[in-house]
């Protein structure tokens, strides 16, 4: 009798870990297949809503001290950066005017070519935006994300594109009452459809993790390419982003005789490490089928 009780006792931890592993694998499978995504998103929203006041309170206490220390340590650099930013601001204003004219020209050309989806694409200049501040970076070492201080109460929803500084920074993957999580274009699971070079050149820009270069996929060997070339969102039918938003600049490209595609690296146009104020675009992907 005592020996059978001991044997049961010995088996109990193994049974416990077996059941817990089984439960974990079941949850992972449900989330991975998307079967319980609604319930899981709901749980995450509730958790974020409950935790947001605490996070905000801690942030209010910690941020001034951090900013003061950071400012004291980098006062000279900040002054220099300020001067550079003023100069850059003037240049960007001129470029924005030029870009607006380019977008109009492109739309006119697309309509002239009778592309079925051209008329359905909104101009990104006219999309309303919600301004937000980055309050936290990467909640996981294995995902490039930021958290904003604007959420469903301000009109933010899952899937909305987010722009900051010079261009696209990512899209909203989770939204709760007072905040949202944005997956950055540098995240390893991010893929943005972009256009480059000649009209009709489309490719997929993949993220490779925080601080790493983006990788342009599906570029045929020998495709004319130049360093510094701006890759903008394609805005093709069903695309996740509106057309014409700058995403990255080409930093290097190469191909070997045996390669089936050009190896192209790019850097995001937005400064991902220095994000502070961003804008969430109130835009949803078009689901209409192109007319025959």
């Amino acid at each position, binding site marked *: 009798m005592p020996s059978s009780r001991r044997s049961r006792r010995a088996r109990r931890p193994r049974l416990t*870990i077996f059941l*817990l592993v089984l439960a974990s694998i079941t949850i992972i499978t449900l989330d991975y297949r998307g079967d319980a995504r609604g319930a899981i998103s709901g749980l995450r929203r509730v958790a974020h809503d409950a935790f947001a006041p605490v996070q905000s309170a801690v942030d209010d206490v910690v941020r001034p001290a951090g900013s003061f220390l950071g400012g004291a340590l980098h006062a000279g650099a900040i002054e220099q950066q300020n001067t550079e930013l003023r100069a850059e601001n003037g240049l960007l204003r001129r470029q924005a005017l030029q870009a607006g004219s380019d977008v109009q020209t492109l739309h006119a050309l697309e309509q002239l070519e009778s592309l079925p989806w051209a008329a359905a694409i909104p101009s990104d200049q006219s999309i309303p935006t919600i301004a937000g501040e980055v309050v936290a970076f990467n909640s996981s070492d294995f*995902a490039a994300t930021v958290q904003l201080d604007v959420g469903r109460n301000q009109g933010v929803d899952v899937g909305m594109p987010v722009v900051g500084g010079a261009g696209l920074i990512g899209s909203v993957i989770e939204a709760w009452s007072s905040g949202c999580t944005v997956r950055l274009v540098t995240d390893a699971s991010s893929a943005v459809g972009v256009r480059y070079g000649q009209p009709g050149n489309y490719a997929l820009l993949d993220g490779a993790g925080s601080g790493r270069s983006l990788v342009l996929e599906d570029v045929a060997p020998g495709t004319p390419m130049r360093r510094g070339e701006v890759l903008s969102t394609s805005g093709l039918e069903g695309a996740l982003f509106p057309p014409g938003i700058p995403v990255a600049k080409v930093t290097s490209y190469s191909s070997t005789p045996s390669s089936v595609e050009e190896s192209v690296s790019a850097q995001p146009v937005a400064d991902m490490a220095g994000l502070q104020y961003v804008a969430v675009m109130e835009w949803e992907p078009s689901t209409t089928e192109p007319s025959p």
Partner: protein
Amino acid sequence: MRTPEPGPMTSPDIAKTSLVVFLALVVQYALLDNVRVDGAHPEIMFLLAAAAGYVGGSERGASVGFVIGLVSDLFLPTTFGLSALVCCVLAYTTGAATAGLVRSSRGIAVVVLTLAEATGLALFAVLAAVLGLTGALRDSLVPALVVTVPASVVLSLPILVLVRWAVPPALPPAATPPPAGLGR
């Protein structure tokens, strides 16, 4: 040596453990997430799970670790349940592997918990890569380890103090009933 397992946790134990998990969440998501080096930041949730296994033994550690992981998953953009799986396996393994260790040495505790943290990160990266997060192993693991391991050396002891306060310890080997016949 098998970890001797005590009875179920009492309500005060559960309340204290919940408080420690909440405190760890605040420290992780309101403070440590903003300490970034090469895109990585210190991580204490795996450390907490490992400490639960170290203090509470393999069975209790696995249960507490599972809860810690699930709570973490609520705030992570990665697949839900991944941290729960890693935390419960990590706590169980730490509890089982250290069942015969002398617990009075702080140095051993720091080494064990830091090793467990590194193992947890590696396991998480492997599972994330299996689930399609291609850069987890290739790009993210090394920076995560470089930042997390030194931070674990510093944070192990404070976390161990908190976990010892909250999680009832596994019975010492001497307290287990002797096999039949030896006590006569």
